C-alpha cells in the first residue's frame, strides 16, 4: 500500500517511467474481445516506451467476479501505477468510487462514462463500425435477408444494432433484417441456434455483437458452408478482425480498436495531456473504429470496398450522422 516501505523506491522509478496497468473483467486478456484488445494496446504502449511488464512498467489484473473490480483497481493504485484502466462498462461504478477516494491517482474507463476530474472516459462510436458492416452486408446478400445477433440489451449493443440497421437501410433499403438477442454473452449454443434459425429462414449474412455467444454463429456458418460449399453463409465478426474464426465464412468484422484508444490515451497522459473529467470519443475519425478487410471470396468485393470508402468519407465529414440508439434510428435517413 501507500505506506509500505519500498514506496520511496517506487517514487524514484516514477520519475523515469510512466507506468500503466489495467483491470480486466472476468474475460481475461485472451477473450478474443475487448480485454485482449486493450491489453494489446498497453503492450504496444509499453514497447514504444521501453517499459517492462510488472510493477513500474505495464501490467494487468484479471477479475474473477464483479466484486473484484474495486479491489483490483485499488491494488493497482496502491502499487503506484500512474494510470489505471478499467476495461468495460461493468467497472463504471467501481472506477467512479475509487476515483473519489484516490484523488491523486489517474484512471481511465473503457465503454462507460465517469464524471470525475481524475478519470478519462473512453467511448466508441460502435454505430459507425456497425454501419459499415451493415453496408457490406447489404451489398453482399443475395436473398435480401440479413440477421443481427445481440448479446444482451445494453446500450453498447444497441449502438451496434442501430448502426448496423442504418447501414443496411442506407445501402439497400429493401433488405430485411432479423434482430435477436441471446440474453447472454457466453452462450455459444444459443448463438448457434439463433444463427441456425436465421440461415434456415433465408438469411445469408449475419452480424453478431455477442461476445462468446457469437462463436456459435461462426460454428453454424462453417458447418453449413462445409455442407453446401456453393451456397452463401456469411458471418460478420465484431470488436477485432475475426477472420480466424473461419476463412470461408467471415465476411468482415466491425472493428472496435480498444487497443488504439488505450494506447492513444496512455500516450496523451504520459505527455501531460491527460483528459481528466472528459469523455474521449473514438470514432472513424480517430481510427478508433473501422471495418476489417472484406473476404476475398466475395464476388463483388471491389464494389463493396468502394461503397464502404464512400460512406467512411461521408461519416468522417459529418454529412452522415450514424444513429446510436433505436430512437435515433427511427428518424434516420440518408438524405
Amino acid at each position, binding site marked *: 500500500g501507500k505506506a509500505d516501505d519500498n514506496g520511496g523506491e517506487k517514487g524514484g522509478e516514477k520519475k523515469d517511467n510512466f507506468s500503466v496497468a489495467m483491470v480486466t473483467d*472476468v474475460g481475461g486478456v485472451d477473450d478474443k474481445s475487448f480485454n485482449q484488445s486493450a491489453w494489446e494496446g498497453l503492450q504496444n504502449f509499453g514497447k514504444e516506451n521501453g517499459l517492462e511488464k510488472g510493477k513500474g512498467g505495464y501490467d494487468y489484473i484479471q477479475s474473477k467476479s464483479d466484486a473484484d473490480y474495486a479491489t483490483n483497481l485499488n491494488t493497482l493504485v496502491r502499487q503506484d501505477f500512474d494510470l489505471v484502466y478499467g476495461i468495460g462498462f461493468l467497472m463504471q461504478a467501481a472506477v467512479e468510487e475509487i476515483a473519489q477516494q484516490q484523488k491523486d491517482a489517474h484512471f481511465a474507463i473503457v465503454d462507460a462514462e465517469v464524471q470525475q476530474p481524475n478519470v478519462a472516459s473512453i467511448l466508441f462510436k460502435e454505430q459507425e463500425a456497425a454501419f459499415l458492416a451493415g453496408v457490406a452486408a447489404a451489398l453482399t446478400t443475395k436473398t435480401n435477408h440479413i440477421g443481427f445477433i445481440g448479446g444482451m440489451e445494453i446500450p453498447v449493443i444497441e449502438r451496434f444494432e442501430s448502426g448496423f440497421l442504418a447501414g443496411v437501410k442506407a445501402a439497400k433499403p429493401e433488405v430485411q433484417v432479423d434482430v435477436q438477442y441471446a440474453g447472454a454473452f457466453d452462450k*455459444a*449454443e444459443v448463438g448457434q441456434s439463433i444463427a*441456425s434459425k436465421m440461415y434456415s429462414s433465408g438469411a445469408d449474412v449475419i452480424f453478431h455483437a455477442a461476445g462468446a455467444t457469437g462463436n456459435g454463429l*461462426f*460454428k453454424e456458418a*462453417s458447418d453449413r458452408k462445409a455442407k453446401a460449399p456453393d451456397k452463401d453463409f456469411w458471418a460478420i465478426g465484431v470488436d477485432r478482425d475475426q477472420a480466424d474464426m473461419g476463412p470461408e465464412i467471415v465476411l468482415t468484422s466491425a472493428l472496435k480498436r480498444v487497443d488504439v484508444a488505450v494506447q492513444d490515451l496512455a500516450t496523451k497522459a504520459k505527455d501531460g495531456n491527460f483528459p481528466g473529467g472528459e469523455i474521449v470519443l473514438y470514432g472513424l475519425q480517430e481510427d478508433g473504429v473501422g471495418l476489417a478487410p472484406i473476404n476475398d471470396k466475395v464476388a463483388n468485393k471491389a464494389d463493396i470496398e468502394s461503397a464502404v470508402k464512400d460512406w467512411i468519407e461521408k461519416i468522417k465529414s459529418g454529412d452522415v450522422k450514424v444513429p446510436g440508439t433505436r430512437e435515433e434510428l427511427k428518424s434516420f435517413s440518408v438524405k
Partner: protein
Amino acid sequence: MSLMDILMIVVPSTLLWAAPLVFTALGGIFSERSGVVNIGLEGLMVIGAFSAIVFNLTFADTFGEATPWIAVLFAMVTGALFSVLHAVASITFRADHTVSGVAINLLATGLTLFLVKLIYDKGETGIISQPFSKIDIPVLKDIPFIGKILFQNTYWTSFVAIIAAVIVWYIIYKTPFGLRLRSVGEHPMAADTMGINVTKMRYLGVIISGAFGGIGGAVYAQAITSNFSHATISGQGFMALAAMIFGKWHPLGALGAGLFFGFAQSISIIGSSLPFLKEIPSVYLLIAPYVLTILALTGFIGRADAPKAVGTHYIKGTR
C-alpha cells in the same frame, strides 16, 4: 413461417441441445443407480470439454476428420480417470457424496483453467479446426417429410446420444451387470449377501459416469463452442442432473428429459419469429424452458423416487 420451416429449425436445434445433456445424464444414472450421488457432473463435463479441445488442437493434423471422434474417446478416458477421485472420496473415504461432488466441480474448473494457462499461457484456448460438423444423414435424409426434419442439418452426435440411451437402457435393465448395479443402489447389503462386491460395483458406476460426463463435455465443446474457456461449461452439468431426475433415473426418461430441455430452449429461440409469440417481451421466452420444466414436473411427472440407498455409505455389518 410454415410449420415445416418451424420443424426444420426446431428439431435439429432440439437434438443439438439435447445430445450433451443426454450423455451426461446417462452418466449420472450409472452413478446414482449404484448408490453414489453425483453432483459432480458439471465438473466431469468441464474435464471432458477441456480434454477434447486440447486433444483436438494438438492432433487435428494427425487425425484429420476423425479428430473430434478420437477426442471424444480421449475425453471419455480423462473423465473416467477424474471421476476416480469422486469414487475414492465417496466410497472408500466415506465422504458425503454431495460434498465430494461439489469438490469435483470446483477442482475441475480450477484445474482446467490452470492447465490452459500452463499449456497455452493464455486464459482460454484457441478455436479447434476439426469440430463436429453439421451433416445430412445419408439415405435417411431422403425420406419424405421426416427426412427433412429429422435427418438434415444435424449432427451425428445427436443420434449417437439417442442410440447410447437405448444401449444404456439395455445394459441397466437387461444384463446381469445392470441388475447388480441397481441392486447395489437399492439395497447394498442385500447385494452383498448375494456375493456382489458393492464397492466394486459402485466404483464402476462412478467411473462410467465419469466417462459419460467426459463424452458430454467433449460433444458440447466440439459441436458448439469450438474452444475451451471459463464459460464453456456453465451450468450444463446441472441441467443434466435435472434431466436425470426429471427422467426418473431411467435412461430413456433421461433421453426424453434431455430432448424436452432442448425443445424448450429451441422454442425460446424460435419464439420471437412466430407470429403469435412475436409481441411478448423476450424475457418470457428466455424463462420459458425453465418454467415449462417446473410445470411439467409439477403437473404430470410428479414425484420421482431416487434409488433407495443413494447417498449412503455401505459399511459392512451396519444397517
